[in-house]
């Protein structure tokens, strides 16, 4: 086993074991892993199935349902744009269009340079400040396209995916 693999397995194990809530389920374990390492690798599906004595199919069944799970390592930074009706009325689609353009991607996904993972969000929860975007889980309200661009341009580059 390579050191990298060993580290991944240890991280997964740690994420599953570090859950503090009294009720531990397939979903709670997957969320803990997603929080801890940023994605659900194959190894995590196996680890959750083993720890909860269920099948890998049953685990992937849950993981594939919720759109917040991803199955490949994320890029360094996360950017999310809200497309809920309030944000839409206040100009979110222009922001979305512009971000897709500057990131050179066509839909939600990862930029090739490893810098940004981009997602649409159905509602970031701060409708009174719409349009809202989230950059590395920090919310920014009353956005304009140019402000959003400036925020994205400030993000650190990355040489390697983590």
């Amino acid at each position, binding site marked *: 086993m390579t050191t990298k693999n060993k580290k991944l397995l240890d991280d997964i194990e740690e994420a599953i074991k570090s859950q503090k809530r009294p009720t531990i389920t397939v*979903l709670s374990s997957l969320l803990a892993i997603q929080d801890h390492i940023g994605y659900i690798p194959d190894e995590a599906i196996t680890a959750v199935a083993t720890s909860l004595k269920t099948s890998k199919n049953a685990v992937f069944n849950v993981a594939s349902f919720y759109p917040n799970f991803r199955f490949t390592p994320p890029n360094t930074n996360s950017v999310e744009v809200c497309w809920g009706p309030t944000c839409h009325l206040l100009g979110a689609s222009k922001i979305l269009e512009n971000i897709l353009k500057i990131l050179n991607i066509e839909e939600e996904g990862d930029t090739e340079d490893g810098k940004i993972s981009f997602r649409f969000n159905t509602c970031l929860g701060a*409708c009174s400040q719409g349009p809202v975007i989230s950059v590395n889980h920090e919310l920014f309200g009353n956005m304009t396209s140019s402000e959003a661009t400036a925020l994205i341009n400030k993000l650190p580059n990355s040489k390697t995916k983590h």
Partner: protein
Amino acid sequence: MPQSNYQDLQNKSKKHWEELTNGAVPLIRIGSAMCGHASGAFRISNKFKSLINDKSLEVNLNHVGCLGLCYAEPIVEVKKENHPRVFFRNVSEDDVEEIITSYIIGDTIPDVGILGFLGNEDINLPAPSLDQIPGISLQKRIALRNAGHIDPSDVLQYIANDGYSGLHKALTSMEPSDVIDEVKNSGLRGRGGAAFSTGLKWSFMVNSPGPTKYILCNCEEGDPGAYNDKGILESDPYTLIEGLTIAGYATGASNGIVFIRHGHDGPIDRTEQAISQAYEYGLLGKNIFGSDFSFDIEVSLTGESYVAGEETALMEAVEGKRSMPRYRPPFPAAYGVWGKPSTINNVKSLSYAPEIISKGSKWFSKIGVEKSTGTAIVCLSGEINNPGLYEVPMGMTLGQVIDDLGGGISKNRTLKLLQTGGPLGGVLGPDSKDIHIDFDEMRAAGAIFGSGGIIVGSETVCAVDLTRVLVAFCQFESCGKCFPCRLGMEHLLEVIERIANFESEPSDIELMSSVGKTMESGSLCGHGQLGFGPIRSAMSHFKDDFEAHLIDKTCPTGSCLNSKITPKNTRPYATDYVPELVKET
């Protein structure tokens, strides 16, 4: 904790509150609910912390919730000994130093935006008393009574403001059936959307066999345009925890579960902290206030799924599965989470319980109107001057909410439409200002009050474009379990996109109605049953907009000429996954 100690705890809390709010050490409160967060409250807070540190000042810094005036966020309040509470509005990072030097170190009101003040102390301020601002004076805060005033991470601040007096009263002087009667008599109707009597709902579970029974609190709140549940959890999670405990006592439940969407860290962290503090002070756990009643609460997270807010889908998610609705019967009161009797309430419904018990059902039922008692917690957003989180008495008109609280339509535009009740609710026209916020009146008008979101649109908004976004949301969020919703939503989206692209055919309206009817009668849960609602109400109120697209092939506002980006549902299929998966471990 022995019963007699509630008095001790209150005394201790009151002393703590007095020292904090009128002690020698200045108190800074920063509004940091999601509205504050999105406008930079945490960056402001870090700036305060670093300057306080640099200048070695002695200052208490609290992160509080939302006063309701989201448009003025980030709001920073400074309270000094024998001074009124002074509220600064739209504070920028540059204002922080000014506030510290002039007002915290010195005693001059700095030249930054001032929202108002609160308190009787003599003050010469170029600003009104906060109580005179319509956004405050027209509110009647019950569930949000402490929001923006107490620190949601300090249970003593809640107790100092009469927190836990309702639970104490229930446990020391009322039978569970008395509690249910009190809630029934208050006329409280569920605030999650269905508007069913909360007291009656509680009574269904009383006779279900124990000992393990669950009360679930639904804060999935995936509705775009609604943030009042998250607002309560971020501003004052204790009122929910106390309400949930009261519901547990009334129904004979042993466990409470607060169900929140993963990713909303503010509400999650504050609720978990509140629960652990409640345990620390004996307000949860075994023999609360020395009674026979024991109760446990935990937080359960769901992945991103709007349907997880449906009561049986929520139970599936609590069990760690896909959040897909169950067939009914059996009903949750008999067979709920893990097969145990369960009752589900919305955050808002439960958050009223402490005040109803403490002040009595008569007090509550006098607020609002006959069939819709109490308050409505309105999330006002969109093209409005003063978007906010306003708790108002039921029966207020939509016009009052928009003009008096909301300060009218932004950029001097005129009102064209209101989208109410979440994406499955309805769209109302400009003639809706006289409609009262009342469950039945709103429903009769073809909209629902639902979870309380009101999205305001001006004449620049195209009804077809907005409807397209609502339908795209409902399609994205269909869980896929039953085919009328899974296929119906996809079909409706296809047609509405065709209309928005001026490629529609004359038969499209009829086609949508027919699909809508199938969804209504054949879907397993409200998501599909109500999925046609937004289209139907938009078509009835904005016939002209639809006809322009259908017949003249133009979009009067030009909105539909813009790019139409809506996300693809990127859920992977099991077949996309590794082949070994088929093997069982």
